């Protein structure tokens, strides 16, 4: 006898319904649930058991559907997030708890998290934090830092409703949150029509290779493919890029591939045809490749106009650093390096496209719809208006989803074929080919006078920008402006160089190079404090920038420089932590406690460049308030924050506002979601739009500035001095009332010495890390992070905490475990990101120093959270052990080696 299903079908009970789905029994259960049963709440992040996004309950037990054969579910019960939330009280309460705690940011990990948590909660017992972590530890989250997820699961017994209303400063639940916790959110790979053809990209297996195609037409006809695309098929320019003047990346390489994984061709066909495709007819000739900046000057030129493979340089100078260092009482210096860091969002890149007449529509997970539109137009040889970008929900971005990835392939194929085409990157494709954080090699010197005042700093940084420019020029420009940290540095010289190599392009990743420079600067400040015999926090408080001080570009902020307040609020925690560590270390075991602090700052918005945002809002004749909000919410919360700002300025509750967008046909350009600019810049546009609409409405009713506005039953109601009046709205096509407002932050260009006003706003942060090092094994256990952030004004404090916690988790990864090695760590078991067990308790302290430009005084926040974390961790390791890690990540072998080297040096010194 056999348990076999009837050939070609699987019968199972899905969320209580008995279903029969056509499937091969050897298919992955995840694919069958998604494609066959329409359970799109089952997410695929890796296809290897590594991320847990595909977790379902199989007869009540959580398993990864991607490593389960569909046939193994024959006759059994499968439950998914959407079904659980629809049918089970436990899951309903859990969903509400996720909303209350903002435990879902982008929401791509939420199905896996919630399904695992339901399995735990069903047992009825009240779980401990450790049990939650053990149960949910198999699901990776790149956004939240896990703390709010743990809190939500621990609070899942409560049935309280999430906070649905609130003005500026209120922790309103994510306005776009319910679909994420109910399993109905649609991401990049969830929206393609069923008839869409599938596209697969043919990529270089070598870091550098020339290639020649065989008989492509013959191959297409023989295999039943619909289309093969190569560089020859591009109607417009085979070239794209994000920085004007640096558009250097081809959609398909021509003759030579410059990095491993670069696209050379694409095949398009029905799913079965693609799955059964034999080897693609291409012959490769491997060429000598260069993977590091060290060899770049001698290596073959990647781009004919960039001598020595130097992409560009950045420079900031103020005073005379050389002379001041020569005279300084104390000088410390050091070399530091970091590797490629992968964004590691749980949603791989995905897009689908269809041709509609003479236009092309692209659904994709993106951070930059208008930039994508314009770049695609150039590639397709179309006017920008002929391209429509419809962003889906984005399952994490962190900078990498600013650049084009899957979009040009599907757009071109759909354009030529007139049929919808889809593409979802595999995890290895995503890691191998998407942009990365720039590896850095930094030499820095800092000098102080005898009283402990910083007198000068000199910084030299080389950044591996990979085969193409991407956001490399931004990194080269930003780093010299930020490498002093938020400290008064009268004499300063910083140079940065971006160098091309045969690796995946390095681009934008939370912080644009600043987290790397902070690793050098903040470690050296600890060395300097030690040299001076000063307390490390006190040293920083004494030297940090205050209102009225010039930055290294000579910019002076009269208000809003809040770093001193950040250090000040840490002081009691610092004293407590030092005492705790001293007590623990008095035991004298192989476990050593360390405590350390680091500061950071980040200029919000583009560097010395116009980067406006536009918001449109309209009231329909039926009295509905529509907000066209084009700032893509990649989990950071712009849908909520922008609406809160708009509603406050208009003077209505957030529940009266209906969000539209993003969609390049419907929402005006709100710029890209990067550089911590959306709250500040789009937020300002929303504030202006709300205020303008308010003025229009008040004029319409001829009432005073204090009147209240409400939209009710197809009309506007205005109340003033206890009198309420209804104003019927004119019936017309389009909106009865409409406003469009833009905001562009005031900045000034930098001169040849990098002097000027590059940003209208800087956000600042100080973080304190407590940890324990097992000195025999070199392993590091984090105990607590206390994070003080000056956000100007917290529009939504819970969202602020979420950003802080998520940024800290990424900083922990940067410090302790993450490094992408081209060709070697192209999956999520060799490329490690922190799990639920690696992020300690985080105490966020929100400092509100206001801001002259930000909406209601709010500053941006996204990147700041990550900047101090890694150096604080490294400083704490040094505090615990005396061993300083110069080359990241501080993996156990490196920490142990540093401890042994220090011991050897001490032994030699005493011999």
């Amino acid at each position, binding site marked *: 006898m056999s348990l076999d299903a009837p050939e070609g079908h699987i019968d199972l009970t899905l969320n209580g319904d008995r279903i029969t789905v056509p499937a091969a*029994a050897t298919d992955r259960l995840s694919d069958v649930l998604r494609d066959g049963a329409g359970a799109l709440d089952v997410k695929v992040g890796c296809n290897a058991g590594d991320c847990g996004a595909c977790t379902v309950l199989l007869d009540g037990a959580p398993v990864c559907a991607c490593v389960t*054969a569909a046939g*193994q579910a024959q006759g059994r019960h499968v439950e998914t997030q959407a079904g659980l939330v629809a049918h089970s009280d436990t899951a309903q309460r859990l969903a509400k708890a996720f909303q209350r705690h903002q435990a879902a940011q982008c929401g791509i990990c939420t199905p896996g998290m919630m399904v695992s948590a339901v399995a735990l909660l069903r047992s009825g017992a009240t779980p401990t934090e450790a049990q939650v972590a053990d149960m949910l530890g198999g699901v990776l989250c790149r956004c939240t830092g896990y703390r709010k997820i743990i809190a939500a699961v621990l609070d899942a017994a409560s049935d309280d409703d999430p906070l649905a209303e609130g003005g500026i400063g209120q922790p309103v639940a994510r306005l776009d949150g319910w679909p994420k916790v109910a399993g109905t959110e649609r991401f990049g790979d969830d929206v393609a029509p069923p008839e869409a053809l599938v596209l697969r990209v043919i990529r270089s297996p070598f870091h550098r290779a020339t290639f020649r195609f065989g008989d492509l037409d013959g191959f297409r006809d023989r295999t039943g493919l619909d289309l093969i695309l190569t560089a020859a098929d591009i109607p417009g320019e085979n070239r794209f890029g994000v920085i004007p003047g640096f558009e250097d990346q081809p959609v398909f390489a021509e003759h030579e591939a410059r990095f491993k994984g670069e696209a050379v061709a694409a095949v398009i066909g029905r799913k079965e045809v693609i799955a059964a495709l034999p080897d693609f007819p291409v012959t490769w000739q491997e060429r000598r490749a260069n993977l590091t900046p060290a060899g770049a000057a001698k290596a073959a030129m990647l781009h004919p106009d960039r001598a020595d493979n130097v992409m560009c340089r950045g420079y900031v100078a103020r005073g005379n650093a050389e002379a001041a260092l020569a005279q300084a009482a104390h000088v410390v210096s050091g070399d530091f390096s970091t590797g490629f860091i992968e964004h590691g969002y749980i949603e791989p890149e995905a897009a689908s496209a269809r041709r509609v007449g003479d236009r092309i529509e692209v659904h994709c997970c993106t951070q930059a719809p208008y930039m994508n539109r314009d770049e695609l137009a150039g590639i397709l040889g179309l006017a920008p208006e002929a391209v429509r970008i419809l962003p889906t929900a984005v399952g994490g971005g962190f900078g990498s989803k600013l650049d084009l990835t899957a979009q040009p392939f599907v757009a071109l194929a759909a354009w030529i074929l007139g049929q919808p085409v889809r593409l979802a990157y595999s995890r290895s494709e995503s890691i191998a080919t998407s942009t990365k954080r720039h590896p850095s090699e930094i030499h820095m010197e800092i000098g102080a006078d005898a009283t402990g005042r910083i007198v000068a700093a000199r910084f030299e940084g080389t950044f591996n920008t990979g085969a193409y420019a991407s956001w490399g020029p931004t990194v080269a420009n930003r780093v010299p402006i930020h490498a002093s940290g938020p400290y008064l540095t009268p004499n300063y010289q910083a140079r940065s160089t971006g160098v091309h190599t045969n690796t995946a392009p390095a681009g934008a990743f939370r912080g644009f190079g600043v987290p790397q420079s902070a690793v050098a600067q903040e470690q050296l400040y600890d060395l300097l404090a030690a040299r001076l015999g000063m307390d490390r926090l006190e040293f920083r408080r004494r030297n940090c920038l205050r209102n009225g001080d010039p930055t290294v570009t000579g910019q002076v902020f009269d208000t809003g420089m809040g770093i001193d307040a950040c250090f000040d609020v840490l002081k009691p925690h610092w004293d407590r932590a030092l005492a705790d560590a001293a007590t623990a270390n008095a035991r004298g075991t192989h476990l050593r406690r360390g405590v350390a602090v680091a500061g950071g700052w980040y200029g919000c918005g583009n560097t010395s460049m116009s980067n406006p945002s536009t918001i449109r809002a309209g009231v329909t004749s039926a009295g509905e308030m529509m907000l066209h909000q084009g700032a893509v919410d990649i989990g950071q919360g712009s849908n909520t924050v922008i609406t809160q700002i708009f509603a406050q300025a208009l003077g209505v509750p957030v529940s009266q506002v209906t969000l539209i967008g993003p969609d390049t046909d419907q929402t005006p350009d709100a710029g890209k979601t990067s550089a911590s600019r959306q709250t500040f810049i789009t937020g300002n546009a929303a504030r202006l739009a709300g205020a303008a609409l308010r003025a229009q409405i008040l004029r319409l009713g001829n009432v005073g500035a204090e009147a209240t506005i409400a939209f009710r039953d197809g009309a506007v109601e205005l109340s003033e001095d206890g009198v309420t009046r209804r104003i019927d709205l004119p019936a017309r096509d389009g909106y009865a009332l409409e406003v469009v407002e833009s905001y562009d932050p005031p900045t000034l260009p930098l001169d040849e010495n990098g002097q000027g006003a590059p940003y209208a706003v800087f956000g600042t942060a100080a973080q304190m890390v407590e940890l324990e090092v097992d000195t025999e094994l*070199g392993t590091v256990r984090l105990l607590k992070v206390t994070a003080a952030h000056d956000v100007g004004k917290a529009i939504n404090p819970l969202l602020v905490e979420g950003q802080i916690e998520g940024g800290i988790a990424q900083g922990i990864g940067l410090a302790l475990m993450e490094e992408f090695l081209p060709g070697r760590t192209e999956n999520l078991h060799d490329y490690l990101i922190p799990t639920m067990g690696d992020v300690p308790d985080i105490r966020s302290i929100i400092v509100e120093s206001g801001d002259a430009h930000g909406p209601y005084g709010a500053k941006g926040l996204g990147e700041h959270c990550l900047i101090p974390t890694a150096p604080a961790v490294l400083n704490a390791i040094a505090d615990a052990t005396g061993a300083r890690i110069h080359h990241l990540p501080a993996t156990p*072998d490196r920490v142990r080696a540093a401890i042994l080297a220090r011991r050897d040096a001490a032994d030699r010194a005493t011999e």
Partner: protein
Amino acid sequence: MTLYRPDSLDSALSLLGKGGMTVLAGGTDVYPGLRDGAPPAHLLDISGIAGLRGIARAGGQWRIGAATTWTDVIRADLPPLFDGLKLAAREVGSVQIQNSGTVAGNLCNASPAADGVPVLMALDALVEVQGPGGSRQVPLTDFIAGPRAVALDPGELVTAVLIPDGPGQGAFLKLGARRYLVISIAMVGAVIATRSGRIDRARVAVGSCGPVARRLTGVETALTGAAPGDVARLVAAADLPELAPIDDVRATATYRNDAARTLIARAILMAMEAPHVA
């Protein structure tokens, strides 16, 4: 693209006898191993075979059926001898992986980093194999023939892992660069039987420090008669010729040699403490 799901061992063996089959248990090695490729044409799923799942004791021997998952191990009521195996079970991947992945699959996959191997080596495990030639028992140390290589002939299936009962308490320590879902940099399984507080018999094995996990016979002998206070010194002085680590993305060879020694001493001491697994 066929998945065979026999419900009896006989039909499984006869299907296997036809050749061209890939055995599938939890699938947690088989599916990731495909990378993004198509599954093998013929998969033989053994997870539904009656009598292959579960842990039982008979005739002085413990029997872990080939379809027994890591979660089954965690939930089983077992003596302190198995404390190391239970600890290892909790360290395999994640709850999801423990719910699907089997002990036997871990051995058959024969990864140098398989957490089950050193701990079962320290338990003197035997692998029960059935095939066209009947049934045979192979010591685990012989069964694992090399990295990703096992002593299985065509048509043969692992049906159980057998562990001789006896005195002693187990321990397991795993070293990785993060808390969950982590491939071991090094791991140690130990089983220690004591008499009057001193080591009567020590069994210790190390994984991820060479192409295959190894028993450390030299140290085991040296430890006989040792008190807890002697362990660190004896381990520090030991030769450990069995360790032959390499540099890889997880750690350097130098570090593995050094850390393994620390783990060995700690695992032995842990196996001498009062029972710690609930």
